[in-house]
């Protein structure tokens, strides 16, 4: 650790130690007021958006429904070929807040059933309806007798839980749509898996996505995918899902909830691993699936074939970075932990995760537990900037601190894994760029390897002065992806970027 940064370090140690400190209450894990995440309503409806021909009725003011519709449904139409889909609201007015909105909800359920004939209606409560105490369950139970669609309530008021609680509650509750396994169905689905933990809807049609890669691998093994839950799954698929041979988590953190619920209720086996970035993680994922499919031999053969197809290029790329230090941007906790796992196990790098907010130790507890169980315990560096108030202010401070950290290292020995909107003077590998997909599986491992190789081969090229100025207007200091247009901010993950005036600026400047 360099002397410059020492004064700004909140934590520098291993994940296990951070985890312990968080559990013991010795490090603050709450997010600062300037750093919000989507609320429970938003995360709940993100999962619900992934169920085909299911209409969400948001019992509340129109803004809740409109917000999620704009974020999820418009995106699905744009990227995934989804038709126009509504998110319905009871449009609670001041009058409804004062006198109650149960009548409106009753009417809305009837109307939605008539207008859309969905397979399922899910009534999602909002802050307003939750606070005034509308008896939503009673209304729904009564409506059940009167309508054609199946119907369910999700209690997901925005204040009722932290970010991930919305994901969890829906994943737990949609198990109620499912039917117990039958011998006939089990026989039919003996060679089938569910991929669980997806959200929002179908995959992008024009991109080789991570989920498509997993589907390809399952099929190449000789099995099939019964359903991706909740990535455009039908109600019928949900009903039959417990009869599949195994549930394979897409995202351990989210997939675990539904997988565990199905395991507890129906005995459906669960193959639960970290995100399958890289060869090592992919092997575990495949082996976990194969065990319950009775396809261990097929899995081994598949893995050999797949590895053989990528070996030369993969091993060549590995040479570039083996033994080097990887600084991994830690804003997306699950991804950064998975990347750390990949870089350690597959590429022999030393991983330091930077800007990993202590809040993530709670929000991502399942993934953290898994990673530690696998024996991986990456280094975490948290500087004061990460905890500073003010999103811009926090990032500005974080940038300075990181540049101090990089500045004290041998530049040839460090690679940054984060957004291309970062401009440190070390090679930048951006695994989120759309051309660098998939990231899962063997094809993903090769893509990652090529991405790394390209970044290092062209590390001699100074970053574009034009693009740098796009991100950092002169004299402005730091910005993040959110400083750019609203549309761009929606398309890109948030990230920390670095001012050109500080250490770490391009050597040509």
């Amino acid at each position: 650790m360099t002397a410059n940064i020492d004064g700004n370090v909140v934590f520098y140690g291993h994940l296990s130690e951070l985890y312990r400190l968080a559990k013991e209450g010795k490090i603050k894990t709450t997010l600062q007021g300037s750093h919000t995440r989507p609320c429970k309503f938003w995360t709940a409806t993100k999962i619900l958006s992934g169920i085909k021909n299911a209409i969400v009725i948001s019992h509340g003011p129109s803004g809740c429904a409109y917000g999620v519709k704009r974020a999820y449904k418009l995106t699905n139409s744009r990227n995934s070929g989804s038709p126009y889909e509504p998110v319905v609201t009871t449009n609670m007015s001041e009058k409804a807040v004062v006198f109650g909105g149960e009548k409106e909800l009753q009417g809305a359920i009837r109307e939605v059933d008539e207008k859309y004939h969905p397979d399922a209606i899910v009534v999602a409560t909002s802050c307003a309806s939750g606070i005034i105490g509308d008896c939503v369950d009673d209304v729904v139970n009564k409506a059940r007798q009167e309508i054609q669609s199946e119907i369910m309530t999700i209690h997901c008021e925005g204040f009722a839980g932290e970010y991930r609680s919305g994901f969890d509650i829906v994943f737990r509750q949609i198990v109620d749509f499912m039917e117990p396994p039958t011998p006939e169905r089990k026989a039919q689905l003996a060679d089938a898996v569910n991929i669980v933990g997806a959200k929002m809807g179908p995959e992008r049609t024009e991109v080789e996505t991570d989920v498509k890669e997993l589907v390809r691998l399952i099929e190449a093994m000789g099995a099939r995918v019964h359903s991706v839950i909740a990535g455009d799954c039908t109600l019928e698929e949900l009903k039959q899902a417990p009869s599949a041979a195994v549930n394979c988590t897409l995202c351990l953190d989210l997939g675990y909830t539904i997988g565990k619920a199905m395991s507890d209720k129906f005995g459906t086996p669960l193959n639960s691993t970290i995100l399958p970035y890289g060869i090592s993680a992919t092997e575990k994922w495949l082996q976990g699936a194969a065990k319950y499919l009775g396809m261990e031999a097929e899995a081994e053969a598949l893995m050999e074939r797949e590895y053989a197809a990528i070996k030369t290029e993969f091993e060549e790329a590995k040479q570039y970075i083996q033994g080097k230090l990887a600084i991994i941007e830690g804003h997306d906790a699950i991804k950064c932990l998975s990347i750390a796992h990949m870089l350690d196990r597959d590429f022999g790098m030393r991983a330091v995760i930077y800007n990993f907010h202590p809040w993530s130790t709670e929000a991502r507890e399942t993934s953290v537990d898994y990673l530690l169980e696998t024996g991986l315990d990456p280094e975490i560096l948290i500087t004061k900037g990460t905890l500073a108030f003010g999103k811009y202010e926090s990032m500005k401070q974080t940038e300075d601190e990181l540049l101090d950290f990089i500045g004290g290292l041998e530049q040839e020995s460090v690679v940054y894994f984060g957004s291309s909107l970062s401009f440190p003077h070390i090679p930048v590998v951006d695994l989120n760029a759309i051309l660098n997909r998939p990231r899962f599986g063997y094809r993903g491992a090769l893509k990652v390897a090529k991405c790394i190789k390209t970044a290092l081969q062209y590390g001699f090229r100074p970053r574009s002065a034009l693009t740098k100025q796009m991100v950092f207007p002169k004299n402005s200091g730091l910005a993040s992806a959110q400083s750019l247009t609203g549309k761009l901010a929606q398309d890109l993950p948030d990230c920390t970027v670095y001012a050109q005036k500080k250490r770490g600026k391009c050597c040509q400047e």
Partner: protein
Amino acid sequence: MSTGLTFANCDHSKDPIVGCALEGIATTVAGIKDVSIVIHSPQGCASTVAAGYDTHEVDFTKRKVGCTRLFESDIVMGASEKLKDMIKQADQSFDAKVMFVVGTCAADIIGEDIEGLCKQLQPEIKAKLVPLLAGGFRGNAYDGLDMGMNALLPFIKKRQVKRRGRKPRIVNIIAPQANLNPTWWADLAWVTQTLKSLRIKVQTVFSHNTSFEEVEQAGEATANILLSHDIGYKFANKMQQIHDIPLILGDIPLPIGVNNTTRWLKALAAHFQIEEKVQPMIKQGEEMVVDTLRKRALMIIPRYRNCRIAVSADGTLGIGLVRMLFEELEMIPEVLLFRSAMTDSQPILERELRSLGISPLVAFSADGYQVKQALEESGVDAVIGSAWEKYMAEELGIKIAFDVFSPTNRETYLDKPYFGYEGMINMMEVIANDWERAFRSKEIHHT
């Protein structure tokens, strides 16, 4: 005016294409420079406030937002202390001159006394605290825009000395952001540049890049110009009552298309008695449109003539579009679907339709279901709208959909007004390209 559109099963359920009151209020506040916002709410509302900032394309370095992140215990026990702490922290970190303290649904319903708290805390806080109750249930985004602007009224200083004699040419501009042009600030720029060229001073814009000092000085204006047909009338009325500043041009369509632009400019000039100054502008503008279209767009004449079209828009652009489409492009607007209730501007639309001699089907406050239903039943050849309508049209088999309004799928790098003569050409460029795409072959015949 014909309505003629009825929708069954829409009394209790809505498929919204407009946000809630909080978004409207945020869209007003975000237009004021150097302010900070503390939202007293669960964290989800922060994204609604962010949408307000996105509307103004406010740079991230200038977004000073804090959220109290209310959870269940706060709802049960109240969260005044949490709010106090957040205000203090935000005051210290952001150092803005003015801080809006906004209560959303949760805070509004549980009865958090934001006003009282702000009064009590003000001596300890450097920023001027402005409390606002902005529960989403108080209306839609248009209502919120109105509420946001009305909240600024108390800060407008009354002119001490009554003006005598000829009044100077100073205007306020109201509600430029209530406009579905994806680069609506270009419309504002067209208006301000036009005013500047006519030596009419712009005092205050409510609101876009507006300083709080400018808000305070708005009472210096001698006229208000409203750039929306959806909101702002109440605010304008109040300005008349309190500050004796009249609303001008409020009874004619905004400058969309050649004829409406000419009318608008003439009316502006007439009010300020500078008719001769506006003539060259009109002449140049009209000639530019004709020259451009005859060089590059002759084919539109057979294409657009008698094309039966549905318009799904806001009142701001929609009212003016009717004349542009019918009279100038010879299309036949058969269905008009407006996003807001347009309570105050319906008479303008009525007059337009009467003078054009047409009776299209009309719906106000149309939601997504109603828009789609109307399109399905209409049998039109084309629809002009946003990305929403584009997807609906594809599904319904309407071959031609013009993606002109927000939200749009188009990338736009250069700001493009829709107001004025150039604005008409900009819109027609989008329409022309979407037309081409609709009819270009999508098949490859492999040999």
